[in-house]
């Protein structure tokens, strides 16, 4: 369980942006989507903390509410930030896999 000892490595911001890059979703749908793609379970307190920050920074925007549920969608600037962050992650992952391959792991 060494991976657990190292703590969570997934940034909640990236997870939320990734979820919304698949199309507009309301809070519950975002939580379920993140759960299915990463196994990480967000609570509403964490999710809306992240959504509030992303909305403030113009990376997501709310759509008209459907009853008590309000969908959010990723903006162009949010998509650009997501792409930038993922490119760095992919670069680091490439190097890591090559080095692990060299170690025979």
């Amino acid at each position, binding site marked *: 369980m060494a991976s657990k000892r190292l703590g969570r490595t997934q940034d909640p911001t990236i997870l939320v942006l990734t979820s919304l890059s698949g199309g507009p979703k*309301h*809070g*519950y749908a975002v*939580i379920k989507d993140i759960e299915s793609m990463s196994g990480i*379970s*967000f*609570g*509403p*307190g*964490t*999710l*809306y*903390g992240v*959504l*509030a*920050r992303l*909305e*403030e920074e113009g990376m997501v925007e709310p759509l008209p509410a459907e*009853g*008590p*549920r*309000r969908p959010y969608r990723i903006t162009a600037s949010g998509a650009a930030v997501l792409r930038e962050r993922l490119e760095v992650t992919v670069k680091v992952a490439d190097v890591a896999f090559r080095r692990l391959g060299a170690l025979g792991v």
Partner: protein
Amino acid sequence: MWPFGDWERWAYDRGVRGRGRPPVLSELVAARYADEVRSVASDLSVDGRSTSRLVFDLLRGAVRARARAQGMPRVYRLWATRTRLSIAVATLPWMLVAPVVLMAMGTQSLHSSVGRIFPPQLSLVGPNSLEVMGRQAPMPAPPLTSAGWVVVDGSRAILVLFLVALMVLIVGWSQLIGGIRRSSSPHRRKIALLAWAPGFALLADIGLVVARGLIGPSAYRLTTGHPMVPLNGNPAAGHALGVALGIVAIAGWLLSMVCVAVAAKRAEVAPADLRFGRTISVIVASAIALLLAAYTTWGIGLIVQAREAARGSFTTITYSNQGLWLPVVLVLLVIVALSALGARAAVRSWKVIALEFV
């Protein structure tokens, strides 16, 4: 309606009922998202997510949201209130903790195995020449240990920090009163009265001290083995005034903090006063952090001094309440964290005001 059952219902009933607002926990996360948070929490609860986990997550989210002002609309009134409250959170803990630190040190006394030390206490400024009083002529006292000097310097630093922070707070307080006077709020008289609470408390203390001096006894007859006999004045009234002084001093001190906090929350002062208050909050938070450092050093010095003194002939320095050192350090740690968080929030809130409204 109540995804967290009785706990949330209890909080709602005692918190926001009657104001037509949504339940406490979901609102605290960020008021703007309250309905959505409640709806998601309800869905997750139906999914089988445990209530305690949801409550913990909401509380964590609420603390973060409040600390970072997440989702707070860009409205000047809201950010100004946040700045004023943050300034109060950064500065008022000093009023609570500084007198406690001074009391927790107690009275200083000097000791030596060679004999009685004179003077019995070190003066706060200037060099001290200590002597041992014996049957023959006085002779120079053994030196203080190096840790003993650290204790002396620590106690001096504590006093200096106390005085500096007190002066800074008085300046900040007068700025608050001036800001209230200059404001256009229709309630500014009431708010000013609240803000004046420390002044009223001080006046009441001075009045009681003077009354005790005038009414109570001022001359006593001392007889060995017998209690002091008052020769003039009214001893019963003097005693009653002494008790009243203690009660008024403590109650006034605590009430002053509450009144100033309420006044700071309600006073609609100008942006320039907010900027000034932000600076005061940073200085006071720094002074409290330095006070913790000085008090910690002082206590460690006392511990090390005891070990050093066992290795030779030294003059040692002790304080009547030094046993309270560790609990006071722990309380100070909490206060330092609170004050630093307040100052940080004041700085950030002011930044938003300066960028968007000034």
